[in-house]
């Protein structure tokens, strides 16, 4: 238990948002990002921070088995991971509720399994500790979404999805969270409590920040909230806003508890000295608005209970994105082999791409910058691959163009196909002269020859 922190990775299950990319075989956590499961990015981030004791929570038994199997294969001897399966659709809060009895450390770090970022979780934990906060959330700037060049811009305008931006209120020092509203709530008016505004004096409202779903919770707080509020389903939409709302009229019974046990062995000095001591400490340190508010108007001993909700804002030069939509999936794939290439963990060739030595390329086939070609894939003659990821053991015929796309493993693409801005899942088959633009092809789907699609989901109808 490093520094008295426990880490919970919420790996999710088979998210509905990501159909048809996810399936029973491929839960969300195992979606490939640059030919590596997305979960590996989180695990490696944590491993890099020397956090090697993890609890991974997966929705659904099957998914848990698969995730567990992959982890035990990939991280044997490197990490100590416990996988917990929770029922589907319990939400993030529900998942934590299910494993609450395993949590023993003072503070809990909750990380979403779909996070791809290079911000040290230690920074969040440190900010949390420093303020003694009830919760600390990591915020990062909203990533650039959508394809890079405007020529192939998607008509659906996924970039302006309201769901991916939050409205966040910060105090002037940018350390405390005063207001947070996410996705669906934004449609309504923003309601800010007067008491908070009055205590802080000034609030900065930002829409360019995104909740990265990396939280540090005080364990006692988390468990108390989860116990008391049975209806809470989501950390982001229920628990966090609740804590933020109630920060100046805390209903939590955590404050002061650790202090009494601390001095348990020295009962000679009762009450009065202890009070004086805490006052000494409180007075000489710079108070946050919480303390000022708690103190009340006459500066006496605290009359109101408060807790702190802090934020850690990742700096602009860090990469941070969540794989929570199909658009995000292609964006992240693009970024990981492109601008955020340090995340991928691969070493790039001189041409700034990665071609596995066992991949075979036909004559006059070009693989451009920021591309990745997996193990054992074959490309026919006169192909052109730009800014795309191609998985393992794919067979691609001649005269195929792949631009801005993700092709997973064991995909067969016949001659003369043209693929733009699409995602093609494992075992899919594209017959001759297929033209795809901004499409998603589900696993095992067969696209008949000569067909043209634009902006469609192509998947088996068996579900």
């Amino acid at each position, binding site marked *: 238990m490093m520094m008295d922190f426990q880490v919970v990775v919420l790996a999710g299950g088979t998210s509905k948002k990501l159909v048809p990319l996810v399936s029973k075989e491929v839960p969300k956590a195992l979606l490939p990002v640059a030919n590596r499961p997305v979960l590996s990015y989180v695990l490696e981030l944590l491993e890099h921070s020397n956090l090697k004791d993890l609890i991974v929570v997966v929705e659904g038994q099957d998914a848990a088995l698969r995730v567990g199997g992959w982890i035990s294969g990939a991280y044997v001897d490197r990490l100590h991971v416990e996988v917990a399966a929770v029922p589907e659709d319990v939400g993030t809060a529900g998942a934590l509720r299910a494993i609450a009895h395993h949590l023993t450390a003072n503070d809990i770090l909750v990380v979403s399994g779909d996070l791809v970022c290079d911000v040290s979780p230690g920074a969040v934990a440190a900010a949390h500790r*420093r303020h003694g906060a009830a919760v600390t959330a990591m915020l990062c700037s909203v990533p650039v979404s959508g394809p890079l060049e405007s020529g192939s811009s998607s008509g659906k305008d996924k970039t302006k999805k309201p769901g991916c931006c939050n409205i966040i209120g910060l105090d002037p020092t940018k350390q405390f969270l005063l207001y947070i509203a996410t996705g669906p709530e934004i449609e309504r008016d923003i309601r800010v409590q007067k008491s908070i505004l009055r205590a802080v004096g000034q609030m900065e409202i930002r829409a360019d920040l995104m909740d990265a779903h990396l939280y540090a919770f005080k364990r006692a707080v988390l468990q108390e909230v989860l116990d008391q509020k049975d209806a809470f389903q989501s950390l982001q939409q229920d628990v966090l806003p609740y804590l933020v709302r109630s920060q100046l009229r805390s209903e939590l019974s955590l404050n002061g508890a650790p202090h009494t046990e601390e001095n348990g062995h020295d009962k000679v000095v009762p009450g009065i000295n202890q009070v004086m001591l805490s006052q000494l400490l409180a*007075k000489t340190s710079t108070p946050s608005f919480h303390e000022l508010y708690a103190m009340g108007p006459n500066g006496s001993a605290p009359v109101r209970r408060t807790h702190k909700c802090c934020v850690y804002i990742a700096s602009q030069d860090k990469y941070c994105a969540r794989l929570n939509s199909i658009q995000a999936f292609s964006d992240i794939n693009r970024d990981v082999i492109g601008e955020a290439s340090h995340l991928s963990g691969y070493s790039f060739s001189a041409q700034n791409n990665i071609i596995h030595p066992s991949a075979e390329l036909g004559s006059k086939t070009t693989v451009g910058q920021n591309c990745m070609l997996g193990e054992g894939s074959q490309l026919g003659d006169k192909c052109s691959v730009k800014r795309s990821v191609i998985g393992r053991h794919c067979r691609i015929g001649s005269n195929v163009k792949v631009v801005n796309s993700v092709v997973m493993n064991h995909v067969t693409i016949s001659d003369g196909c043209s693929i733009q801005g699409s995602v093609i899942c494992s075992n899919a088959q594209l017959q001759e002269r297929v033209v795809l633009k901004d499409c998603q092809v589900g696993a095992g789907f067969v696209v008949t020859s000569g067909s043209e699609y634009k902006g469609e989901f192509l998947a088996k109808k068996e579900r």
Partner: protein
Amino acid sequence: MDPRRGARVVIDPKVRQVGFFAPGASPGRTQSGPPESSSPPVADNSPTGNSLSPVMIPPPRHASDNLLSARPALYPPLRRPGDTIPVGSYNPSEFFHGTSPTASFYSKVGDGEFSEDASGAGWTHRGNSGKVASSFPGGGFDLTAVKPSNLTTVSVVNMPPGISVKSGGASIEVQNEQPASSRSLKEKTSKAERRALQEAQRAAKAAAKAEVSKAPIAASGVATSVNAKPAKVSKLSSQKKDSASVTASEKKGVDRPPEKDRKKDVPHPRMQFDDKSRVEKAKRRAVVRPIEVRNRVELFRHLPQYERGTLLPDLESKFFLLDPMHPAVYKVGLQYLAGDVSGGNARCIAMLQAFQEAIKDYSTPPEKTLVRDLTARLSSYVSFLIECRPLSISMGNAIRFLKSRIAKLPLSLSESEAKASLQSDINRFINEKIVLADKVIVRHAVTKIRDGDVLLTYGSSSAVEMILLYAHELGKQFRVVVVDSRPKLEGQLLLRRLVGKGLSCTYTHINAVSYIMHEVTRVFLGASSVLSNGTVYSRVGTACVSMVAHAFRVPVLVCCEAYKFYERVQLDSICSNELGDPDAISKVPGREEINYLDDWAKSENLQLLNLIYDATPSDYVSMIITDYGMVPPTSVPVIVREYRREHLWI
């Protein structure tokens, strides 16, 4: 200042312990583990000899000024008794009963709060000195035998170092006299011993040379003292002075090596940040890798100054990577760094409580002893805290206290008992030295507040605040003037609390202090530390306020708990200080339109200086209110001494 120094000379037997000079003070002590009378002059002299000691190199001009002016006053009266008495017959007898208490005393005192390899010094010291005593008879015989014959002794002198065989087969090393060999010894012998050995050898050489030219009188002096060496480091070094003065040419050769040696031995907390090589070394050790500010003020180059923005993120991102750091300690370090906790008392309490936590969670690793391992652990915590922010003197004293408590744990205690006893020691320290001390100070100070008074205070001192509140509770009628200064504006918080309690206050900034002073009847100030020449080391601006008060003939009362007293002497606020964030003074928060210095760091010609502390000469202080009563600043050394002693027997 001069008259005061004169006074000190008069009462010299008592003051001696205290009245040495800033630079070499603590290392000098560490190494000399002797009975009381002879040590102080040594401590005094050696720094003057090596005028720039590693501890705190004041900028050259100042150093020479201070030391030169200081020397005539202190030197003669102290040295004379030191010379005549201890060298001769005194030595053996005193040594025999003297050793254990004194040795432990000094080991405890000198067991500098910061020196890393002094870990567990208490034990090694004691153990070794015990051995010295036992091995001494041999030396003692030599001494008596040798005394009359003058210089044949020199060869014998090489033998007594051989006595340092006490720590194991060191005899070979003695002969070849090489630093390498002594280094190999390092692990086994204590500092004092190593030093003794070296000095013995050196003095022997010196004596050998002196022999040729000099009269037997001086030479015999040399001889005897040389004999005393294995037992007494101090005598030797005082003696060394003699020999050095005898052969002027030899002097430099003698003086310099010990300085180097000492540098190696004691990584002093106050590192000189203009010393490139040491800064490099320290950086390699450091947990935090700060970026240093490029344009620093020349006079203050020796103080650390970093780009503020870089330190915190760097440390934060390493949160999980610092394996051995206890979370509580880490948290406190972060809080220091971020400025969440400031003020001498608060920082000290926070640190002690963190240590308490750390001790609670501590378990001795196998094949290690609690005493040594815990001390080492503590030292690593302390060096981490220093990286976050230089220690305050109050913290230094507290650490010293804690380490001495650890060193003195009886071996018979089980681990849990030892931990419990340490934890309760910490509690006691907090309660007695800080909380109760504050209460007593309040009781004392309130007697000085009369109806109709106008009290001025500067900044925000916890003690002063308690005094004001208590006086208000007692129903005294008075007014408070809170003087404040940028950039911290701590006074506003104080003001808020005072006004909240219903006191009538006036708030002004320090630039108006001369205007407001004529209506003030008393000035109450807090202090970060009181040094033993009565200098008050406190938040920058305090000196200004007290000088103005002095000019207006308003009494200045400084409230300071005795645990913050420090035996060091400091005459200016340059050689030891702390630099704050330069951005804090270049920017006015909330006033974007007047931030003309936005990218000042790029300009080579502009250097910003944001000092944190200043030193108020005791002339401007009428009285110091402490938990031992209200005393004039000249009595601080007495309290330091008495307090030290009590500290010992706590």
